């Protein structure tokens, strides 16, 4: 059973203190140490953490935690072939690599969304200008 995506309540305090000792034993500025410390801080604050091999397989419910969406939305992504999956018996399995690839595509959409939110005023001014049938040069000159 793979446990690529961990929830805070799946890890005990004892396990966390052993993890702390392990991190302390690693050399300062160790990349592995930083990755483990980052996962540890997330778990302590009740947020999920991912520790996984690139080709590890996860369940739709773990994928939902990784993507920060509901499980039904993961099934929608599987059914629309946005995320490849295969069956292991009666269960869907998703390769971690495919989740990472989906997240990379999603980042493009996220940037567009952030820019949409940030530039709402400019979009509104431009739509108003077009509704009013005022050319861009005039709008610019008059500061509309």
């Amino acid at each position, binding site marked *: 059973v793979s446990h690529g995506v961990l929830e805070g309540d799946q890890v005990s305090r004892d396990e966390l203190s052993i993890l702390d000792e392990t991190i302390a034993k690693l050399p300062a500025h160790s990349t592995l140490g930083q990755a483990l410390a980052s996962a540890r801080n997330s778990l302590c604050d009740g947020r999920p953490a991912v520790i996984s091999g690139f080709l590890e397989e996860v369940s739709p419910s773990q994928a939902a935690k990784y993507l920060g969406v*509901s499980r039904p939305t993961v099934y929608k992504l599987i059914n629309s072939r946005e995320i490849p999956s295969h069956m292991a018996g009666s269960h869907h399995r998703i390769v971690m690599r495919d989740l990472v690839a989906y997240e990379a595509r999603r*980042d493009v959409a996220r940037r567009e969304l952030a820019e949409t939110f940030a530039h709402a005023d400019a979009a509104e001014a431009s739509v108003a200008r077009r509704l009013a049938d005022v050319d861009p040069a005039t709008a610019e000159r*008059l500061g*509309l």
Partner: protein
Amino acid sequence: MGTAGRPTLRCLREDLAGSVQDTYQQGRIRAGKVPCAALTDTKHPLVDWVAHQFEVGDDADISRTGISAIKHPKFYKARTGKRWRGAVYVDPATGQAWLVAAGYRREGEPDDFYTQFAADVNANGADRYLPSEDDLAVLRVEEAKARLADWKTDVAVAVFETVAEAIESPEGKASVMLPGLDIEGNVGQLSLELTSDPDLGVDEQGDTLVEVDIAIHDWSDIEAERLLTVTVCSAMAPSEDSWDAVPMHGLTHLIAQIPSARLADIRQSVALGDLPTEPPGEVRQTDHSHFVAARNIARATVNGEAVVAICGATFVPRRDPTGLDVCPTCTDIQRAAAGSD
């Protein structure tokens, strides 16, 4: 359609600029720009007086005094306080009133301004004073903005009704044709789906979270669609960090986890007919500052591009982060990376 009596750009620039009671507006006027979004908001007593005396759809001129020394076109006297005098032209085609000239009353000469104005118009014609193409363009943009505000309100109402319908439907789904705009590529549909999943957990108040998935179909006008996206999101959850993008079927679905109490409120509003009467505001950023790679921040701030913070939040820097609390996730990661934890 029309607005309250408003100044012409010539009157603002040549007659009023120096006495506008706001230095920002003065600077805009001197740079040849409109001082504010609605010209009737120019901070000047005479502009204010004209806006109140010449209201939209006023057809009776009983309280108005004409400048009798000018036969054609007809100008009315404007006056406020002891000092400010002006001339108002009412466009016969639209009923729109324009403050076309203004000046000080000189000591001991009560009608000095009107006499000078009449002499100038009678000698040189009125064209210099009548509203210009630029004045009409500014007026049209103001009217378009008012129409957009009404349209955004209609969109918010459509969102509320769609949410209520989705709550009542067995699949948690509903879709609606969105109100159109008078530009090409303006027709579109909003589909909305509500998903309950116990794994989504609860918010700080202990309310169950429900996932809202929205998609806007068929709008081909990109700018109008952006405005629509912001309006739809803001009507439901006005905080930027509520929303995330989920590409699906070549379309970006927008997903938010919204407390069930908020959805119940919307449903209640629809049931009581208590629908939005104002346009929803912007989608606001959180009160947190984030850690972002220094090499990315300058370019993004100048170009208005999005950056990805080390906690994963994607946003366009648009607030001064000074004095804001640092995002707790960013703090953790920063601490871990510095090896000081």
